[in-house]
């Protein structure tokens, strides 16, 4: 039962990542693209990690996966902020049509 719930979590996460990849090609400017890609990618990462933790139960494996999850929750928004700040400070603006 717990294995099936974990598998459902993993496939829901992969669905969110699919929406992120579609959004990466759907928008045609840089700032909407980075918003959609980073935010939905983080949601998919959280879902896949929760699925792996549920499938493995309470063990050292799950503890290490939880450590990677907490670390990635700090790292992923920092990388996105750094890329967007670099683009804004270098003078990249969306031109009005």
């Amino acid at each position, binding site marked *: 039962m717990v294995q099936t719930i974990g*598998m459902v979590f*993993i*496939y829901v996460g*992969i669905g969110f*990542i*699919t929406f*992120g*990849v579609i959004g*990466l*090609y759907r928008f045609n400017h*840089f700032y909407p*693209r*980075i918003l959609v*890609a*980073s935010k939905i*990618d983080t949601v*998919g*990462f959280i879902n*896949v*990690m929760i699925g*792996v933790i549920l*499938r*493995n139960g309470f063990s*050292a*494996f799950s503890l*290490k*996966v939880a*450590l*990677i999850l907490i*670390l*990635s929750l700090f*790292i*992923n928004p*920092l*990388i*996105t902020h*750094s*890329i*967007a*700040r*670099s*683009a804004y*400070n*270098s003078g*990249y603006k969306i031109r009005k049509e």
Partner: protein
Amino acid sequence: MQIAITLLIILLMFSALRIMMGPTLWDRMLGVNMVASKLMMVIILYASLKKQNFILDIALIYALLGFIGIIFMSIYIQGKGRY
């Protein structure tokens, strides 16, 4: 579990296509970030498939090195080549 790994590798290919066809420099850096994130997921799913504990260390080191690399690349580009 094998189907999930295959789907993630197909998505990784599509997000790596953004590195090649990105119009600006920052689009390519966004593509590098997304490829690193998906590759970390593939490594963790493979470790969960094989029930081996030491493969997770590779994902941990990959996350930390990707963080350092992309932060320094963006600072380097923001300073227009002077650091």
